[in-house]
């Protein structure tokens, strides 16, 4: 593979696509697939074949279009008029009507308006190809400027220049902690080892977050390209993608993407005629939340139990098989190609002073529009929930928004005007996390939510360090007592003490951040805790005798 050959592929593909004057894109990412979008696509395919319009009407399976709650989504585009329509909740029987509409009026009963904030307020960098290209064809990716950043890096830039651009862009790790990516890359590139590794962390364990899955399902080549550029920059020749076994579709599309990239010579030895060689292999996670922690992830890739170890040495010095290892999240890698293509300065213009670029959020819970959105950093929570999210359904009242999964916190209504960036979220007692954003209304009880997350941390604690193993259990017990109205004020004191203890003495991020949901709800919703303990009442009407039983049963299971 050399640059000319890649241009050739892009040229051929663009030419082939220009034959089609009518395009129908059907979302075949997991969200819409579970609403039977495959049967919609099949129906459209059959209908096109029956009408004999195959030479100018293209039906394509594409990645996520974002508005998962209204799926299956279908978008149409007529090249001559440039008119594009998005249809929602399409059924297989609607196929003929949609094809008819290509030459006439849109099917009004299915039209999904795209002039609403949900679509208008987004800025797509990571998701620029999602919902546009066919994730199973590398040609489509190449035609959309894919792999041009890799070619640019390999042929026009030194590895130091690549790192410089990434540093200039101000990109920070999208896995949650927000460590500057450029700094990490330069540390790994300076480390000495016989072999260096690049690992992509696709073990998206946060409940309520599905950004990485969506990126992998909609645009797998973008992640590979990011990894390739990273490998070139730090001098690695082997890579692993650690992906959750719970994401079978993402695994299938990644495998396919790796095979295609190998076939056209973008993975393997002497890529583009240079001395750079790189191989990628998949490693499947097996359902352990703690494996999102980098040292635990390394242990898991090595075939061991996913238990973290103390840092330093950091993986950048001593990681996989004792060698320098670069670990970045899926979304971080997905940002790399555009940065190299357009330059670090371009990326640094987007976002806030300290948090650059865009962030993909998985908006879920009690909001009208649930799905995947990509917004510039610094947008306010209010815009996220009430404009993009469309507000709370059934006229209920907003109560809190939870970010950062089990390591994050609940932000109350008075945080709504806060900008969404790493620093502001941390100040408010939450974290950016990987991008899950769950909206709660008055029907959710904050004690119950805190208990839910503590149950999660208790079950997922790997058991290596005692503060986390025993502390989460103790905290869960107290929270269960509060939820069953049997707690005493002393318990509250103990709870606060445990929060402090876990935060400061746990070995890894899981234990250190496990108290966050409790601390943040105690800070903003102390009244609810008080009502449970003193008045024996749950203001939201969630907790009670039944909750107590369930909590005890869970604790029981844990000890057995």
């Amino acid at each position: 593979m050399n640059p000319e050959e890649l241009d050739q592929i892009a040229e051929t593909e663009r030419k082939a696509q220009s034959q089609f004057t009518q395009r129908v894109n059907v979302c075949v990412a997991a969200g819409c697939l579970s609403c039977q979008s495959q049967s919609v696509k099949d129906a459209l395919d059959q209908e096109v074949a029956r009408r004999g319009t195959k030479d100018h009407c293209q039906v394509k399976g594409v990645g996520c279009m974002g508005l998962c709650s209204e799926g299956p989504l279908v978008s149409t585009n007529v090249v001559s008029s440039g008119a594009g329509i998005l249809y929602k909740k399409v059924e297989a029987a609607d196929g003929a009507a949609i094809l008819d509409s290509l030459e006439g009026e849109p099917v009004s009963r299915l039209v999904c308006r795209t002039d609403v904030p949900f679509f208008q307020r987004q800025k797509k960098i990571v998701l620029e190809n999602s919902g546009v290209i066919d994730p199973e064809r590398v040609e489509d990716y190449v035609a959309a400027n894919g792999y041009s950043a890799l070619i640019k890096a390999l042929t026009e830039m030194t590895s130091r220049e690549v790192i410089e651009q990434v540093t200039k862009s101000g990109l920070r790790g999208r896995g949650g902690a927000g460590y500057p990516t450029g700094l990490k890359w330069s540390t790994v590139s300076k480390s000495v080892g016989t072999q260096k590794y690049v690992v992509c962390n696709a073990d998206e364990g946060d409940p309520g977050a599905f950004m990485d899955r969506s990126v992998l399902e909609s645009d797998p080549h973008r992640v590979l390209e990011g990894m390739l550029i990273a490998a070139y920059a730090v001098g690695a020749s082997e890579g692993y993608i650690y992906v959750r076994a719970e994401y079978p579709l993402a695994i299938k599309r990644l495998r396919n993407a790796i095979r295609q990239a190998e076939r056209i010579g973008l993975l393997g030895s002497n890529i583009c005629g240079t001395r750079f060689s790189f191989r990628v292999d998949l490693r499947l996670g097996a359902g352990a939340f703690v494996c999102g922690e980098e040292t635990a992830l390394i242990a898991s890739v090595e075939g061991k139990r996913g238990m973290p170890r103390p840092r330093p040495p950091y993986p950048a010095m001593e990681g996989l098989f004792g060698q320098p290892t670069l670990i970045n999240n899926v979304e971080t890698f997905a940002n790399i190609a555009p940065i190299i293509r357009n330059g670090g300065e371009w990326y640094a213009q987007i976002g806030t002073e300290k948090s650059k670029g865009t962030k993909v959020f998985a908006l879920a819970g009690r909001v009208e529009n649930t799905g995947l959105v990509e917004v510039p950093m610094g947008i306010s929570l209010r815009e996220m929930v009430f404009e993009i999210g469309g507000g709370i359904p059934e006229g209920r009242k907003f109560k809190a928004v939870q970010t950062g999964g089990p390591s994050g916190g609940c932000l109350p209504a008075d945080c709504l005007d806060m900008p969404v960036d790493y620093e502001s979220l941390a100040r408010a007692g939450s974290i950016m996390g990987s991008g899950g954003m769950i909206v709660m209304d008055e029907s959710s009880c904050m004690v119950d939510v805190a208990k839910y997350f503590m149950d999660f941390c208790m079950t997922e604690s790997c058991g290596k360090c005692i503060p986390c193993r025993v502390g989460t259990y103790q905290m869960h017990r107290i929270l269960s007592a509060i939820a069953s109205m049997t707690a005493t004020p002393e318990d509250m004191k103990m709870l606060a003490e445990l929060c402090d203890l876990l935060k400061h003495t746990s070995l890894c991020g899981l234990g250190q951040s496990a108290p966050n949901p409790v601390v943040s709800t105690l800070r903003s919703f102390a009244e609810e805790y008080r009502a449970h303990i003193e008045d024996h009442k749950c203001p939201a009407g969630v907790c009670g005798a039944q909750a107590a039983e369930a909590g005890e049963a869970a604790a029981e299971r844990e000890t057995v």
Partner: protein
Amino acid sequence: MLSYLAKPTPPTQDKRWKLVDATIRRQGQQQRGLIETLHTVQEAFGYLDTQALRYVAMSLRVPLSRAYGVATFYHFFTLKPAGEHTCVICMGTACYIKGSQQLLDAVERELGIAPGETTADKKVSLLTARCLGSCGLAPAVVYDQEVAGKVGTAAMREHLKKWTQA
């Protein structure tokens, strides 16, 4: 050849062991291939029993204790065979907020089993998932690999009835 270096023979004549052997070979018979190999065994046989663990441990030359440790550490691996049908209820945050606990309570009452268990007639296994990533469709349930979104208690009972009465 020294006996402890010889490749162990599969526990049974079952053809599925060929798949397992292929994975072991692909991992270069290295210890690091343990998790990948266990994935293959579980995919082929549905669960990991003692003889499978023993065989994998011997083939990769890891202590049986480590193979067992890994198999029990990760939630994805199961040491018991599943029932004819599996019902997975997502307990991710978005699903929880939208009432997946009520769904779970309903199934537990209906089938008389707790998560991770199988009904006595081996018809239905009940499992919970940390998050399926179908948060836009909360609450989500997986009936035999098929994800259903926005599930209500009534619809779920209906579905289970089809299984238990079949």
